[in-house]
């Protein structure tokens, strides 16, 4: 503990680490099912705003805000997922970036929009000013408990019929369909689960940082969430967890590097992607890199893909 504090990992940093691990897991779910979706930041904002409005404007306890945020995000994931998840690969990524931007702009203009419809002055999201003065009620144990439950669900998921279907859909959609797997259901279900998880992280985080504004959930946040998952590695669910931890702790540990921090961050992202295929939690990747570092030529580098 003392050591962690000495390198800059205070309790609040640990809390951010736990939240980002949850976000990493929400990204993991979609990636594991072969969907390159960048919608998580958008769902995070939907969760955060719903949760905060419930706790602040309607004086509900945190758990009501949490469940409310998760439910709203989950419900909204259905009309978004149904059309969008037909897209694949980069096209899906771009469409979900678009979704995130639209959500951001709608929250930005929510009050004026609602005001013009109801004819009364609405002050719910407060546009760019954001919501401030949110009570700090998220505790470390809330986050830990949430993460433990999520981890347990991940483990059980992989041992279940549905979890196997997720993997099958990732590897070959048509073949999975021909095996009797309802691909549309599987993808949308996972999309909803991912949205719910991201929303939960959003609610929990809003009650930690005391203030939220639409700008917090833009493209940058979407990319960060992606980085947690990919850097950690998506071969197991532990990867995104570790990715969330490391990428959150890193800027704090590197505080003393001041203006070189960005360069170190970028370099690490690049190095891991380039030299550690499969991310940080992937033993095979490490041994391969180790072999390469020791100069052991494997002699079988392929010039092009092997099909």
């Amino acid at each position, binding site marked *: 503990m003392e050591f962690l504090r000495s390198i800059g990992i205070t309790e609040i940093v640990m809390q951010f680490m736990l939240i980002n691990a949850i976000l990493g897991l929400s990204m993991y779910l979609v990636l594991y099912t072969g969907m390159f979706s960048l919608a998580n930041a958008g769902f995070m904002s939907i969760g955060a705003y719903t949760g905060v409005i419930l706790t602040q404007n309607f004086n509900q306890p945190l758990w009501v805000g949490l469940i409310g945020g998760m439910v709203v995000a989950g419900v909204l994931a259905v009309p978004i997922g149904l059309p969008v998840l037909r897209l694949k690969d980069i096209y899906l990524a771009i469409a979900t970036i678009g979704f995130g931007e639209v959500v951001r702009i709608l929250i930005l203009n929510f009050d004026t929009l609602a005001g013009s419809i109801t004819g009364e002055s609405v002050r719910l999201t407060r546009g760019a000013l954001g919501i401030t003065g949110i009570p700090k009620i998220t505790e470390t144990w809330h986050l830990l408990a949430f993460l433990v439950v999520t981890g347990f669900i991940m483990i059980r998921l992989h041992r279940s019929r549905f979890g196997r279907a997720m993997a099958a859909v990732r590897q070959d959609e048509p073949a999975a369909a021909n095996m009797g797997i309802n691909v549309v259901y599987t993808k949308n279900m996972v999309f909803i689960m991912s949205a719910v998880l991201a929303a939960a992280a959003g609610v929990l985080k809003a009650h930690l940082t005391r203030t939220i504004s639409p700008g917090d959930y833009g493209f940058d946040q979407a990319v960060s969430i992606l980085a947690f998952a990919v850097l950690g590695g998506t071969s197991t669910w532990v990867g995104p967890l570790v990715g969330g931890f490391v990428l959150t702790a890193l800027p704090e540990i590197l505080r003393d590097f001041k203006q070189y921090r960005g360069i170190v961050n970028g370099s690490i992202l690049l190095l891991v992607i380039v030299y550690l295929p499969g991310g940080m939690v992937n033993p095979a990747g490490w041994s391969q890199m180790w072999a390469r570092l020791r100069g052991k030529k494997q002699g079988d580098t*392929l*010039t*092009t893909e092997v099909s």
Partner: protein
Amino acid sequence: MALLEVSNLHTSYGAIKALRGISFQVERGQVVSLIGANGAGKSTTLNSISGLLKPSSGKVLFDGRDITGWRADRVTGLGLVQVPEGRLVIANMSVEENLWMGAYPRKDRAGIQADLNDIFARFPRLAERRTQKAGSLSGGEQQMLAVGRALMVQPALLMLDEPSMGLAPLLVNEIFHIIAEIKKRGIPILLVEQNARKALQIADYGYVIERGTIAYEGPAEQLQQNPKIISAYLG
């Protein structure tokens, strides 16, 4: 000196050893067939020669020059041309553009034009479709185009990878007619084929690959008589 001389070639995909010491040669003017089961290493052999794969050890000599591990485009530049499995004509280019693309390593515009006319004369079906997108051709026509495209390089040695794969019987016959004709023009051919019977019929010499090594070799007629080969490959 043989035109192509491969000695003790090893190639692996990660941990899987696909070739475990392949040695064979192609003499000038010869048609040599490599036959064997799927996964035995036939295509890997071709790819290791043409530069699509890097062998981990062994030697490839072409016309006396050591080309082991050369990049594919440099190998093609020497006139050692591979027609890949599955035809793979450039679907969004026209037939004519595909043929021009074949002549990519060459710089003599006039010579290319002459060869182009020659190809069109020889494959009237391609001439009819010269402005059509290659992707709209039928399977047989695509194979024709792939071979024609390889001929545009003026190859010193043509390597054909499974030219009859997945083709209707009628087209299989047609493709072998084309190969026979190329053989007549004196262009040496290294033929990798699933259809062992036809491959040995057309070849001067044959090799049988089993699990990454040469199991049998000999003049094509001899192999066709070999009872073991008959039972395993000719049925």
